[in-house]
């Protein structure tokens, strides 16, 4: 495009203690483009963007914006220069309305309150223009994650920006919401704005961006035009080697039924019907997948199976023993492992060490405890062993688990759950928020577990994950299992229709459904 780039990042360096987050990054963004920043977890994408929008200050290097060297001390200074960022973790006050969130910290409260009607009008106008469906008087806590994200994007637009930075915007979205967001990016560019978007999902990046920069180990290793590359090449650039989601695997040899679920019914934590009569069997030596758009009862199904949510009706039988409604401690002790969906809520205790996290369920059992006291040597040895076997990148077993990247945290959770020697493994979102290297590793580990005769139930919203390792895929919608398909990519359309709630009957009689 033009000779002078819109934004130029020149040899930026940033260290956090011993960790080098940016190791001399150089990057150019052109005006009016969608520029994707692709990279594994911990490659330094978020930190780089935080430096552009004034959240973090670089140690060295220069940021040149519209031909001028700039240095922002706060996000507000960046906004004043028309640069805005939407973070992965939303920065909204839950018990305020949309409009109230927008005017937070905007000069004199009295003046702003007088102008509240204008604020509402402006929000409505922007919302209509981009079809965002944001109501200025809606309370944040009443909104879904997807809605909150639109509120965040509109907030930045409300303050008036030319450069929009989105940090992993699709991580929390359903496929439909993702489509909507990608379309919105196109709209923004049409209005003359520039979008930088951070992701590690290849397909999305390929769909919307003009150019893609790949980051690895704190540097930009490649910048390419989308037209001149493909997903495989990008993946190779990301990890520095070839990856295919085709994992080598032998055909499954299903054995006896390990877990049998009959007519399971339960409600969500808010008391709404969530799982409506689900029945399924998982046999030894097979991986059964459950596909579905998030929010269709998968969370409640996994919580009910593991004893964290009361069961209203139905039965869960593990190894011939009825475990319905037992306390989690009893279920954990009967050969049941659970890799939870929400790692930070259920899976780990962020401020405890890796060692302490590996004994979460077995803290009072030998060899980790004797006569009521923890055996720190045994715990340390066990943890070191897991760290080594699962290649968890960490300083040592005494490091706080919260200091690790998401992928390494997940590896430790997987390691812990497998080390408990289970007969049945419940997995909800195996690879959420983790990088390709770690994803491939945990998937291969699951296949190994399958081959050694364990029964695995994998609940996921990522179809690639399901296709890659499952032996059969069940589809869940509105709390029911609507059908079963083989893991065959050629039947993707059928799968998509089932996920949308259209069963075979509907397919045969489209006139009735319409």
């Amino acid at each position, binding site marked *: 495009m033009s000779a002078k780039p819109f934004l130029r990042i020149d040899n930026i360096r940033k260290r956090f203690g011993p960790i080098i987050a940016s190791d001399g990054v150089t990057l150019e963004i052109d005006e009016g483009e969608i520029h994707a920043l692709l990279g594994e977890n911990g490659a330094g994408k978020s930190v780089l963007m935080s430096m552009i929008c004034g959240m973090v200050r670089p140690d060295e290097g220069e940021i040149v914006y519209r031909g001028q060297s700039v240095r922002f001390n706060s996000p507000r200074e960046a906004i004043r220069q028309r640069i805005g960022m939407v973070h992965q973790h939303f920065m909204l006050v839950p018990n305020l309305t949309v409009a109230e969130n927008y005017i937070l910290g905007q000069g004199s409260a009295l003046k702003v309150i007088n102008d509240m009607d204008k604020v509402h009008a402006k929000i409505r106008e922007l919302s209509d223009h981009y079809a965002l469906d944001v109501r200025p008087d809606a309370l944040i806590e009443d909104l879904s994650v997807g809605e909150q994200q639109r509120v965040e994007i509109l907030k930045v637009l409300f303050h008036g920006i030319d450069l929009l930075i989105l940090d992993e915007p699709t991580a929390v979205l359903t496929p439909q919401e993702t489509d909507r967001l990608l379309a919105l990016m196109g709209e923004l560019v049409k209005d003359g704005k520039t979008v930088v978007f951070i992701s590690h999902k290849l397909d999305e990046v390929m769909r919307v961006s003009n150019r893609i920069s790949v980051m690895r180990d704190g540097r930009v290793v490649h910048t390419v035009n989308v037209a001149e590359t493909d997903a495989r090449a990008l993946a190779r650039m990301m990890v520095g080697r070839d990856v295919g989601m085709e994992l080598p695997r032998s055909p499954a040899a299903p054995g006896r039924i390990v877990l049998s679920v009959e007519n399971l019914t339960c409600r969500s934590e808010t008391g709404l019907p969530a799982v409506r009569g689900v029945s399924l069997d998982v046999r030894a030596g097979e991986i059964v997948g459950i596909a579905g758009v998030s929010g269709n009862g998968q969370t409640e199904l996994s919580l009910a199976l593991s004893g964290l949510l009361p069961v209203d009706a139905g039965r869960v039988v593990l190894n011939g023993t009825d475990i319905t409604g037992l306390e*989690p401690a009893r279920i954990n002790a009967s050969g049941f492992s659970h890799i939870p969906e929400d790692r930070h809520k259920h899976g780990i205790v962020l401020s405890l060490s890796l060692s302490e996290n590996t004994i979460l369920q077995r803290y009072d059992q030998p060899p980790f405890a004797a006569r009521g006291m923890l055996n*720190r040597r045994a715990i340390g040895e066990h943890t070191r062993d897991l760290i080594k076997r699962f290649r968890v990148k960490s300083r*040592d077993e005494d490091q706080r688990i919260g200091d690790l990247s998401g992928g390494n945290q997940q590896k430790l959770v997987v390691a812990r759950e497998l080390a408990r020697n289970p007969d049945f493994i419940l997995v909800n979102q195996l690879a959420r928020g983790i990088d390709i290297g770690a994803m491939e590793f945990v998937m291969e580990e699951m296949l190994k577990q399958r081959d050694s005769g364990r029964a695995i139930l994998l609940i996921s919203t990522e179809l690639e994950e399901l296709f890659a390792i499952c032996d059969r895929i069940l589809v869940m919608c509105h709390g029911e299992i609507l059908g079963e398909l083989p893991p065959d990519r050629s039947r993707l359309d059928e799968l998509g229709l089932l996920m949308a709630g259209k069963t075979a009957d509907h397919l045969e009689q489209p006139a009735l459904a319409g």
Partner: protein
Amino acid sequence: MEQVNQGVRENVYPQAAQALYRTLSQAAISAVTPIAAVLVALAFGAALLWLNGFNGTDVVTVMIFGSFQDARSVAEILLKATPLILIGAGLCVAFRCSIWNIGAEGQLYVGAIAATFVGTSIDGLSVWVHAPLVMLAGALAGAAWAGIAGYLKVRFQASEIVTTIMLNYIAIILTSYLVTGPMKDASAAYPQSARLVREAWTPRIVSDMRLHIGILVAVVLAVALYIFLQRSSRGFALRVVGLNPHAARYAGMDVRRNVMIAICISGALAGLAGAFEVAGVTHRLYQNISPGYGFEGIAVALLASNNPLAAIISGGLFATLRSGSEVLQITSQVPQVLVLVIQGMVILSVVAFAKFRDILRIAA
């Protein structure tokens, strides 16, 4: 296996050295910030006194060192430190489990009531039996009183902050009722209970000083609670429940049971503090048996970052400030409120410095 073992052995020394270095530097950071907080608070206090026309540095010096005149005055400091260490260490356990027990004051009072009952209604036991029995009664009563709030929390999700404060009022008023009514010493003009029988008294360390073996019990219990929290399975579960109750439930821990255990431990130590006040110091139950030890114990735990070992030191510090303020009242015209202001500043700067410490930790 062989190879793995060898690999581990080769790395043991540098790893151990690194771990030691980290432990020491973390410990230094942990120790430096509360000390800095106290110094900053004292400096502010001196400035405040100066603004009020006093010689600030002199007054602060008296406040800290004024009470260290002789063995007897040191013994008096330790006497005051006893309930503060007990309550502070006990609260560390509750706070680590994220139980905000504000009711140590009330738990101290019921402990004192129970100790008085056991110490006055039984006679003819040996001191080896009676004195420990009094302590046990105090601890059990305190644990039971705290247990009420614990039960209301696990059964009805009632906020323990509210219920423990309410139970404080009940315990204090109950004490007033008892010493003016049912437990009143009929021969005395003032509202006070009968004197505890001599065998029920907490033995003194030196016969002509008031200091009793309670201080030793307090230190031993604080160390024991530290080991309990850091090294025992139950202590681990308490900490996990406090840090992330969802993960605790996922891991199969009984959240309610751990909550009950944590609040009852803190109540037991407060009740024991109450028993020592009666059996070790006053030998009778009075209306105002505690000058607010239960509330000051919260500050002791806070300054100790909820570490029972550190509560020994912070309890000693608050006892020193308390003694110093008494010396000040006798030797100068500094109003006691100013002393309270300085104590308040210590708490405020501890909170401010705790934030600062977190930042340092991340940087380290």
